[in-house]
């Protein structure tokens, strides 16, 4: 196992300088999610208008992988339609299982591909994505 396979430069950059951190003022879908085995937590907020993710913010505490993955997720889905965001989420999950995934859709997220070789860390990387899926599902149920 090579550490650099896991901790790619892009990941460390997002960990040290997280994007879209904070809170949305005004209307937003919101969720708090915890990883009960390790205590990592995230609050995710989505502002969706006309089926498009207009704004997305997160706050959280956790390891480099969970926080970098959250930051990268917000970048990946911001400005995308909810449908597209869900597609990216599906592809990301394939990446975590070590399956072939759509590189074009994943773009930068490909940097997290090393996580699948560190099974104990997969749940770190998927925390923010679980928050995304749950938020969208909750909003669909609400409608």
């Amino acid at each position: 196992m090579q550490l650099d396979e896991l901790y790619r430069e892009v990941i460390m950059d997002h960990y040290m300088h997280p994007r879209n951190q904070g809170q949305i003022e005004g209307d937003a879908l919101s969720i708090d999610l915890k990883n009960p085995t390790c205590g990592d937590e995230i609050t995710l907020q989505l502002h969706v208008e006309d089926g498009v993710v207009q704004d997305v913010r997160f706050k959280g505490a956790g390891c480099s992988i969970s926080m970098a993955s959250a930051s990268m997720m917000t970048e990946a889905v911001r400005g995308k339609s909810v449908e597209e965001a869900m597609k990216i989420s599906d592809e990301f999950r394939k990446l975590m299982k070590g399956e072939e995934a759509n590189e074009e859709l994943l773009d930068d997220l490909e940097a997290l591909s090393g996580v699948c070789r560190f099974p104990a860390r997969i749940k770190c990387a998927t925390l923010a994505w679980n928050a995304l899926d749950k938020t969208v599902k909750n909003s669909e149920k609400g409608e």
Partner: protein
Amino acid sequence: MTTENAFIADFPILDQQVNGHRLVYLDNAATSQKPLVVIEAMDKYYKTINANVHRGVHTLGSLATDAYENARLAVSTFIGAHDEREIIFTRGTTESLNMVAHGYARQHVHAGDEIIITLMEHHSNLIPWQQVANATGATLTYLPLLDDGTISLEDVREMVTDRTKIIAMTQCSNVLGTINPIKEVAKIAHEHGAILVVDGAQSVPHMKVDVQELDCDFLAFSGHKMMGPTGIGVLYGKMEVLEKMEPVHYGGEMIETVELFQSTWKDIPYRFEGGTPIIAGAVGLHAAISYIESIGMNVIEEHDHRLTAYALEKLSAIEGLTIYGPQHDRGALVTFNVEGVHPHDVATVLDTEGIAIRAGHHCAQPLMRYLDVAATARASFYLFNTLQDIDILVDALQKTKEYFGYATR
């Protein structure tokens, strides 16, 4: 004992490379490794005398029963119980503590009574008491921690009243390493007519625990943390409190007569061991106890102390490393955080060096909140660990800091 450690050869699992390095196993507080004698004892049991206990008339049935009851006797002697009937086999500490909560506390704790626990409890010695308090209307209170992670007997004296029915406390914290003054707390408890329930999960494997000397009413521990197999544990209870405890598992093996609408129970301890018991597990635990006794608990204790003192000294010297818990008189573990690096990341880096440690909340969320951390890393030792293992840990932690660019930040 220096780097030459005669016990290493007893543990087959240690003879392997993990991620290209010699395995350095420092997660004994989660579960310890097993010596060959334990593995072979269970193997032999299954190969030669496996049968159900307390029912068969046939030869294997009596041999299996003897093996199971001999294990009970060995446990009883090991912890200095008055009578082997005071030993109940369970699945582990968690089941033992739940048995006390359901079988004893739910019967004898009432609205307005008090249950006292400490802030350092493992979830398994915390949630059962929350549940008892919620169900009975009793009040659950927490003994505070001092700055060094210990409790004060003054606080105990102040908090315990005649309304206190139960004090439940760990003998050794799985996070802070704190050793609690069980004997003194037992005295205070009894002065007020309360009983003391002791979580021995981290103490029984590492120090001489004598229930008569401690005078605790219940003691719970797990076989797997003391070199025995998973799936077997113990609940010790004084005969007088066991007589007041209700069974929690109804079914076979625990009854005397069964009528259509009523039944009567077997004698203690069988009434508490409903269903086919964990026979091979008991045999494995017996072998683990024999192994410990062949070495001498005092030798293990001394070895643990030496490693822990060395680890504390070496780890304290690492800049940016915070160590939790008292400086002295502590269990065989060190819990810490590396500034700027999440414990998960620490554990992953160490894993690539073949070092196994624990990272997380260690099933003690209220304590984590009190320490104001989301998670911590923990290295925990046992007799097969060496000073060299700790040197390897220290080097790897330095490497972790460098890798995460501590110096440049």
